[in-house]
């Protein structure tokens, strides 16, 4: 069974000082060209209620009737608790922080995770580190796929109207992670 690296595992790798993927340079409001080739977007397979690309990167899955996968919905909720106070509603950016919905497409998954776990600073622009925050780390894939769906314009602004049910595996992992 294929399974993508969990954020906790990635955090552990980073903490050990092992080489991580070089992070993308830009974290500004760089626009996204939806029609361009985005290898980290298309869903290739499903595993226990989560969707992945062929390269095992978590991704969103939106059905024709607009039903979103559980992670995208969950990511909407967690984003608007933990992230929107700086990055604005729906990942649209603010006077304070960049349009993070675009970053989720423009940055690769591992660089995105690295940034959330460890934070980064650019003068007086500072992204905090969330590595020890369970409310973020246990839902990092959720937040990531939600923002990627927003960046690709796969879902409109606002609360997704229809969603898939939460799978047993997702619930199990959540319980284990939140303790």
């Amino acid at each position, binding site marked *: 069974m294929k399974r993508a690296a969990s954020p906790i595992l990635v955090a552990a790798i980073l903490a050990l000082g092992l080489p991580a993927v070089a992070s993308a340079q830009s974290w500004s409001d760089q626009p996204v060209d939806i029609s361009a080739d985005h290898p980290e977007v298309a869903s290739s397979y499903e595993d226990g209620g989560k969707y992945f690309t062929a390269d095992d990167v978590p991704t969103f899955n939106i059905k024709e009737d607009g039903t979103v996968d559980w992670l995208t919905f969950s990511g909407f909720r967690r984003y608007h608790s933990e992230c929107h*106070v700086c990055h604005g*509603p729906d990942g*649209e950016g603010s*006077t304070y922080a960049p349009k993070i919905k675009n970053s989720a497409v423009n940055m690769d998954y591992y660089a995105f995770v690295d940034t959330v776990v460890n934070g980064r600073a650019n003068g007086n622009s500072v992204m905090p580190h969330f590595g020890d925050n369970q409310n973020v780390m246990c839902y990092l894939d959720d937040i990531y796929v939600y923002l990627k769906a927003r960046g690709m314009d796969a879902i409109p602004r606002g609360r997704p109207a229809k969603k898939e049910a939460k799978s047993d595996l997702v619930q199990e992992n959540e319980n284990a992670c939140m303790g």
Partner: protein
Amino acid sequence: MKKLFALTSGIALCAGMASANENLSQMMEDPGQWVIQTGDYKNQRYSKLDQINKDNVGDLQVAWTMSTGVLRGHEGSPLVIGDTMYLHTPFPNIVYALDLNEDGKIKWKYEPKQDPDVIPVMCCDTVNRGVAYADGKIFLHQADTTVVALNAETGEVEWSVVNGDPSKGETNTATVMPVKDKVIVGISGGEFGVRGHVTAYNIADGSVAWRAYSMGPDEDILMDPENTMNLGKPVGENSGTNTWEGDQWMIGGGTTWGWYSYDPEENLVYYGTGNPSTWNPAQRPGDNRWSMTIMARDADTGMAKWVYQMTPHDEWDYDGVNEMILTEQTIDGEERKLLTHFDRNGLGYTLDRVTGELLVAEKFDPAVNWTTGVVMDKESPDYGRPQVVAQYSTEQQGEDVNSTGICPAALGTKDQQPAAYSPDTELFYVPTNHVCMDYEPFRVSYTAGQPYVGATLAMYPAPDSHGGMGNFIAWDGKKGEIKWSIPEQFSVWSGALATAGNVVFYGTLEGYLKAVDAETGDELYKFKTPSGIIGNVMTYTHEDKQYVGILSGVGGWAGIGLAAGLTNPNDGLGAVGGYAALSDYTALGGQLTVFALPN
């Protein structure tokens, strides 16, 4: 006469002023200076100046401008002491002393070194609401909670103390209030599980005189079980712990980042406390005292004389920190010492500020729907409590349920942006938000120094109204009625100024400085400044000429929530994106603009 006063205060400045705070009270009487952020101890933000009045304000022109060199949200206002203007900025919290005799030439500049790690633990932008003055010192409360006293003449640091711990999420955005020989200091961090407190430091050397927590044991909260009154009854023992489960009070919130007022006769300091942590009400059963509370404390000892909790067991993030405006008005033929407060929860309260008796509690935006009103019957066991509408109760709807259509939104019918009061019209002039929300609470865990929120929010303009996100209203505090209301496209996030010229000034998020008629609300003047306004309007004279000053520099909560525009998820797809985006009107940039009449 005015000149003479300016001269004497100038001499006092040079002499170093040993007993400065009587002096500070006197200086507040001089309309030529703007010596405290709130205009005076009463927080009236009213100026006796009338050179600029409702007949000539239409001729107003820009006299001079200055860039602050900082791009973040600019709240608060400059001070004017004698011939010097003191101008602050958001993080990194620069202070400039500007010589008004030389077109604002910089006399000195102070720039603290602060760890940038404080930036991300400041929920919602690195704003700062300005410096204070007393005893020949300028007081700056930095983002990292360092309180520093600067020599007003030279900018040299006279003392500095650390009020909190940013690694636990304790930060600062507020100004401080000098009272007698002390300076009163609050703390931010309600979204990080901080336990709020107010601390009085001795002006002479920065040592702690007293500290009063918002919740905790009686000795921490400085309440006397017998003599501290709550709506006419003693608070009793352990009032700061017995409405919390277990030791949840230790991360209980109730931060103190708003404004402070002071009544010298009663020797009482007034302020409000913020939301209980977390935003998920199911996780903290009980009334969560004394979050969301109006406090009246003795300035010398910190002991609470009376308290009133406006929103027991908050379910919506309706912080109670907004300013307490002190007035003397006649009610039922009797002159009373009043306190009026426009709360985030959408109710305008008037209390007797000597006893804490509740006189008026009425909605100051008709959209407010989470409550049917406050029980005013003194015999009722629910006396003083707001009656919560089940449909809009995020507690009763429960965890993981999205409660929709709640008005106001978490940012409140009004946030910290201070209202003004004119004794001429006996009206309050109130900048407001006209925004509603969906709110879904869920379980979160606490980690020191990390956000402790636990709710998802969607905000949108009040439905079935004018479509805008704000109003600027005139309010009768005795009756609890709106006299007039000006619809605004965006939330009004700027502090108002009322003057004896029968003019009221305020700024808008698009960047307009507006002047309106104090009686009618008719617009008399507007000018678009370089960036959106979240600062507070002030006025002063220099060489007998009246000036009006305002900081531009969009940001703060408004800049975050409204930058990309709002959408109403309940409107259906057609309306999505139909509301104005602030980013279509303005961009970042800190600037002071000073206005005057043509010569």
